[in-house]
């Protein structure tokens, strides 16, 4: 690592965050994200195949919900991702505002449409699950309502971005919305605990991974699919952040150096 200080004073130690800022240089990030993507995408697809097989074939039917419970394997990962992606978007936006880091803003902007789609998936699969179990497609229940607000936050974030011609102003304005909206995340997460919700409680809890609320033969496909969704999100995010970098970079001299084809 280059320890030479730019100011010329030898006393200043190299920042321990240097790697972080190197990572944030557009050409470096662009190349790195391209290298990471296949390592996220293929394991994700493999885990999905195994997880879906485990969930649809190997797991026994639930004693109450019968085979309808199998919707859990797509519903829970989608819902988890809808929250995780939002937190990531808000953290990236905050880093972008605090350190004025363009790459962080690019990550936040890239997160929004992916998170919105996961939210749509969670809402629709939940609705389809609710119909046979609760007898209704929709109920203004705390969990369902707060998840719908999450969707509106994503859509609002994207609409706000789209309303600015200047990227930097769009970054700053939308970052504030993303950061403020993060209060909705714990509300979604704990709505089933705080209020008397129609929605069932959590099947797996991070602090109690050893004793999930569902049987072992049912839980491992769920954990596998959750991991698969995270990796898949990572793969899609790589592509979208690279696109953001290209769209933001006015100076494209580095493009020919690294070969824009890859």
């Amino acid at each position, binding site marked *: 690592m280059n320890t030479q200080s730019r100011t010329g004073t030898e006393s200043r130690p190299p920042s321990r965050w240097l790697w972080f800022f190197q990572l944030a240089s557009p050409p470096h990030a662009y190349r790195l994200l391209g290298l990471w993507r296949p390592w996220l995408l293929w394991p994700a697809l493999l885990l999905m195949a195994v997880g879906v097989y485990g969930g649809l074939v190997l797991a026994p039917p639930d004693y109450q919900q*019968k*085979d309808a419970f199998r919707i859990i394997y797509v519903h829970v990962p989608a819902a988890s991702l809808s929250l995780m992606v939002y937190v990531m978007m808000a953290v990236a936006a905050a880093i972008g505002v605090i350190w004025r880091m363009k790459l962080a803003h690019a990550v936040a902007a890239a997160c929004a449409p992916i998170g919105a789609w996961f939210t749509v998936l969670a809402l629709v699969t939940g609705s389809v699950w609710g119909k046979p179990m609760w007898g209704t497609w929709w109920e203004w229940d705390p969990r369902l309502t707060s998840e719908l607000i999450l969707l509106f936050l994503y859509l609002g974030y994207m609409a706000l971005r789209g309303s600015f011609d200047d990227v930097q102003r769009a970054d700053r304005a939308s970052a504030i919305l993303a950061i403020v909206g993060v209060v909705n995340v714990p509300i979604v997460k704990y709505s089933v605990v705080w209020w008397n919700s129609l929605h069932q409680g959590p099947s797996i809890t991070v602090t109690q991974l050893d004793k999930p609320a569902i049987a072992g033969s049912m839980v491992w496909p769920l954990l596998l699919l959750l991991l698969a969704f995270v990796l898949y999100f990572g793969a899609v995010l790589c*592509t979208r952040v690279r696109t953001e970098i290209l769209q933001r970079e006015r100076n494209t001299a580095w493009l020919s150096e690294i070969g*824009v084809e890859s």
Partner: protein
Amino acid sequence: MSLGDFLHMGGYAGYVWSCYGLTAVVLFGMEWSSQRRLRAAQQHARRRAQIAGSQS
């Protein structure tokens, strides 16, 4: 268990398969559209680089 039983999903076939189908479509769609956008941005950047190169 026969294939028919499996597809029948204990009477919940419509609910279960529509959820899995929708998830597959959305996941594939987000990957596909992201790739398409990246290709478009790359082409745009390449064209810009060419114009810049021809001017200097």
